[in-house]
């Protein structure tokens, strides 16, 4: 049986990959996928703890997180489409109207 902390450390690595993707990448779509990676890393940690504590509530939380991720993906992609229509670009550096 794989120990719990292996799952937690793997989840930490995945989360940091997502964070670096959001910070470093300038492509809006890749930044968005970084957010998805972070959500999945959190889901993995929830599943591991749920298995460890023998409580199935974590499965329901993962289910709800996935539903929220679906809603977030639909709205976020609509925003990206609206941005692309106005700017003809998905580069985050092109969106500098409100930059100080």
């Amino acid at each position, binding site marked *: *049986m*794989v*120990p*719990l*902390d*292996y*799952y*937690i*450390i*793997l989840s*930490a690595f*995945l*989360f*940091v*990959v997502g*964070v*670096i*993707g959001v*910070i*470093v*990448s*300038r*492509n809006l*779509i*890749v930044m*968005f*996928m970084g957010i*998805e*990676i972070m959500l*999945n890393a959190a*889901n*993995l940690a929830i*599943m591991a703890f*749920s*298995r*460890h*504590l023998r409580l*199935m*509530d974590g*499965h*329901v939380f*993962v289910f*709800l997180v*996935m*539903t*929220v*991720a*679906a809603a*977030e*993906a639909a*709205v976020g*992609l*609509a*925003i990206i*489409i*609206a941005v*692309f*229509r106005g700017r003809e*670009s*998905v580069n985050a550096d092109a969106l500098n109207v409100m930059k100080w």
Partner: protein
Amino acid sequence: MLLFVVAAIIALAAAVMVITVKSPVASVLYLIISLLAQSVLYIQLSGLFVAAFLVLIYGGAILVLFLFVIMMLNIRHADLGRDMLAKVKPWGWIFGAALLAEMVWMSMGVSSRMNAVGEDFGSVTAVALLLYGKFVYPFELTSILLLAAIVGAVVMAKRGL
């Protein structure tokens, strides 16, 4: 254990490829590979229903939506940001490394032994009993959330509404 190591390496390597590869379409496909590897981990954690849900909804619906939007946008190659990793922002890497060190340090303290579970842990029946029993209000509220998301997405993406 071997299965965990293989699935973990595939999930992590595919996640790294998602943020380093240049074409967004390849990024989405790598993200699907990462999700499939994570569903193997879910099955290992005896979360069968959630693993199936991950493949069907996440890999099958959300990422296909991503692919659809990327193909609809018809992005020129000049826009893709060639300098994505060539001109790296050092603070991103520094904060990322600090966050990783902190999270690994925190997870050193957790108890490492997994408890044994019964046969029906994570089965469709057991999760459904929770979804329609203890968590019925959050579950029904997600339908309102999805409705709001549909309306919001249509309002934002439709031209001149």
